[in-house]
């Protein structure tokens, strides 16, 4: 009696036999299909020839054996055909270094034939009929073979070879949602061009701030490129020897000097400016303003009047939405008041960054007292989820929202840009321009590929893609104004009329940033907070920025 195991083997063999029969039948079918096609050519030769060649070239069933069958069929039919060539290669896709075997099958014309292969990678051509070529750089190549017959007739055929890098770059950033999607489109463009795979990982602020330095100090670089907005953090990493300078990777003439200065130390540039986020002012829904007969203020007095008017509108909880998160939306708002109301305007922000002015000075306290009075009047909402507040501005719960230009990438603003506007704090002389930089850890396992990606991100091409997707201001000056959508262009044009200064807490960084965020959160919900204690705490936490 046969055992169960033997019966199983019998079944497997039977199934394999059936598969072989089916595959053979398919092969016979295609062979006979080509021969049938050639029979038709005896009566409609010129018209079908080109389509036959195209069909063979694109047919996934085309193999060398089928091509040989074709030649036999042609010779058997005694057809005089014009010269043509069919190129094939194996493999056509793979990781570098990729060795590809090319084959050329000439058809028609008058033998003997000569061949010339161009591999599209700036290496020497080959005159062999069936050469082998080694691709060493990732990319997409069009290999072309030109055949010449004895009558000096020529024909050519091309095929595409795609080489990829076995390595995969890892990029960290703080972006999520629409910003992340847009950035990944740029990375996909890079992969398509170079064949180098890139994986993007979005991190939270604290993860990036804490995890990356910890990894680097442990001698590990998981990311090959990191996008970060904190110039002080970047320069501190550079000071500890954890970064690669980018002087040789970017064209420094393409960026405003103020962006480069923030990441320059010891005469070397340690990061590439990528995205600029202007913090231009208060964003609002234009139809909300129109429906409530509100006008954009041009003076600070008009601004205060506007706040009172909005507060009186039924259904409005507060004139100005306040974002939460770790505290940065509140610091952005505060800095707008420092720049807009402070004695010296934008210079006060710079003085605070570099320690030329104290936080517990009278000029700073005046600004905070004004801000506290607005908070006490209930003009600002309780801080809540940053993205959720966007929707609440849209539905009229709040009248406006102080935010960076990236807000145009968030729904429902993103889908309704025609109904979105902004205005700066009236009479302001400056604006905070936060820059998202790209850095390369010195410990990266892929310095060459990371350098390529860095150069790409610094370039106008990559940044123009991001500009086109919205909510992004380019740092590269070669990106034309025509690439911007109307609202982003409006932000850009506004920023050209004022002085752009660094973000205060990003520039100083460290414990100061945390203290700044935490104490502003307290001020927002408790406007009666003792300002002397608050400002002294900030002063105690301040340390000189590293640039």
């Amino acid at each position, binding site marked *: 009696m046969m055992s169960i195991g033997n019966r199983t083997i019998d079944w497997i063999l039977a199934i394999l036999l059936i598969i072989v029969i089916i595959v053979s039948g398919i092969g016979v079918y295609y062979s006979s299909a080509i021969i049938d096609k050639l029979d038709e050519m005896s009566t409609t030769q010129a018209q079908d020839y080109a389509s036959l060649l195209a069909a063979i070239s694109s047919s996934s069933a085309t193999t060398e054996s089928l091509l040989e069958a074709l030649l036999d069929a042609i010779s058997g039919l005694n057809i005089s055909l014009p010269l043509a060539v069919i190129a094939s290669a194996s493999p056509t896709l793979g990781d570098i270094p990729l060795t590809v075997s090319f084959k050329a099958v000439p058809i028609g014309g008058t033998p003997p034939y000569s061949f010339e292969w161009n591999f599209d990678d700036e290496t020497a051509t080959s005159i062999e009929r069936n050469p082998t070529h080694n691709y060493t750089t990732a990319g997409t190549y069009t290999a072309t073979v030109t055949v010449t017959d004895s009558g000096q007739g020529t024909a050519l055929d091309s095929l595409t070879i795609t080489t990829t890098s076995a390595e995969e770059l890892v990029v960290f950033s703080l972006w999520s949602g629409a910003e992340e999607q847009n950035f990944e489109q740029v990375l996909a463009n890079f992969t398509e061009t170079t064949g180098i795979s890139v994986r993007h990982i979005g991190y939270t602020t*604290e993860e990036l*701030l*804490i995890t990356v*330095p*910890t990894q680097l100090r442990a001698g590990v670089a998981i990311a090959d490129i990191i996008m970060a907005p904190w110039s*002080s*953090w970047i320069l*501190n990493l550079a000071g500890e020897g954890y970064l690669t300078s980018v002087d040789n990777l970017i064209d420094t003439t393409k960026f405003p000097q103020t962006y480069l200065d923030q990441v320059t130390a010891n005469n070397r540039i340690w990061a590439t400016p990528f995205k600029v986020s202007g913090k231009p002012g208060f964003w609002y829904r234009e139809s909300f303003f129109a429906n409530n007969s509100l006008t954009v203020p041009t003076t600070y007095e008009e601004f205060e009047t506007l706040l009172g008017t909005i507060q009186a509108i039924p259904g409005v909880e507060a004139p100005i939405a306040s974002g*939460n998160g*770790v*505290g940065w939306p509140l610091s952005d708002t505060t800095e707008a008041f420092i720049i807009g109301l402070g004695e010296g305007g934008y210079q006060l922000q710079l003085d605070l960054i570099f320690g030329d002015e104290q936080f517990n000075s009278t000029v700073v306290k005046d600004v905070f007292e004004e801000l506290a009075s607005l908070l006490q009047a209930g003009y600002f909402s*309780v*801080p*809540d*989820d940053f993205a*959720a507040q966007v929707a*609440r501005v849209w539905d009229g719960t709040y009248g406006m929202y102080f935010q960076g230009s990236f807000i145009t990438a968030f729904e429902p603003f993103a889908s309704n840009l025609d109904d979105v506007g902004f205005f700066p704090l009236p009479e302001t002389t400056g604006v905070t321009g936060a820059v998202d930089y790209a850095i390369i850890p010195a410990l990266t396992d892929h310095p060459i590929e990371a350098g390529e990606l860095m150069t790409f991100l610094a370039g106008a091409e990559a940044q123009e893609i991001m500009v086109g997707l919205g909510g992004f201001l380019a740092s590269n000056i070669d990106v034309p104004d025509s690439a911007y959508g109307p609202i982003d262009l409006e932000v850009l044009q506004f920023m050209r009329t004022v002085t752009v200064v660094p973000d205060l807490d990003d520039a100083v*960084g*460290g*414990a100061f940033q*945390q203290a700044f*965020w*935490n*104490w502003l*959160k*307290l001020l*927002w*919900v*408790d406007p009666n*907070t003792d300002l002397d204690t608050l400002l002294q705490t900030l002063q105690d936490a301040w*340390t000189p920025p590293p640039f």
Partner: protein
Amino acid sequence: MSRQITPFLFLIPTFLLVTIFVLFPIVNTIYISFLNQEGEFVGLGNYVEIFSRKDFWNPQALLEGKLHSYGALIHNGIWVLIHLPLSLFFGLLLAVLLREVKGGAIIKSIIFLGMVIPLIVGGILLRFIYDDHAGILNGFLRVVGLESLARTWTAFPQTILIALIFGSVWIWVGFSMIVYSAGLEGIPVELFEAAKIDGASRWRTFWRITVPMLRPATIVVVTMTILWELKIFDIVWIIQRGGPGAASNVMALDMYMDAFFNIPPNYGTAAAIATILTIFTFGIATYMVYQMVKS
């Protein structure tokens, strides 16, 4: 002689592991707590510094009658004072109530989910629960006519600490419930039968039999809960990072900030805080183990 030595030889591998991964880090941390940022010996300088920081030690605010921001050390103490009795009470209550309820095992499993989910996830859930617009708590308050209490509880310094503590009870009560459930199963049934025969009321039975017999379980719950309260970090960090101001600051978070946010990192003060935490936890754990052995 060899028979006396042999048991200790079997302890060597464990002793080595404990030495390398427990004792050495503790001793090294204590050593670092006496060094400044430049690595120089400063004696108790780091301890003096942290006690001079108001976000770590601010009893004056308490004495002045302020409602928040007493410093991390005192916040951890408040955590113990409120969180511990609530965890004990609700844990025991749920264990007793669900003991003879149909489907009690399923309900216990659901309650225990709080212990299973990562604390960061628990913290995010709490943020939503306490949110003014989206939170279930405020929705409930509005339904029962207590709209005046509705707010984002984690945004205000007066309410964030208590909100975190209650949220922590919600997460931790599953542990105390499970321990007490196991303890209840270990009480001999004859004791209850004897009490019933003697005419003892349910309340008297509970106080005179159940509670004393649960003493070992109580010791375990108290020990583990206090250790949890002293080391609390995740939900504090994810909700407000110790803010607003320093209203929800705790020792573990202070230690974290010193070690990873200061530029350059201040490992000395971070180690000093870690040492203080170690002294507290070691002292409590030792006492509790002694109580367990004694009982």
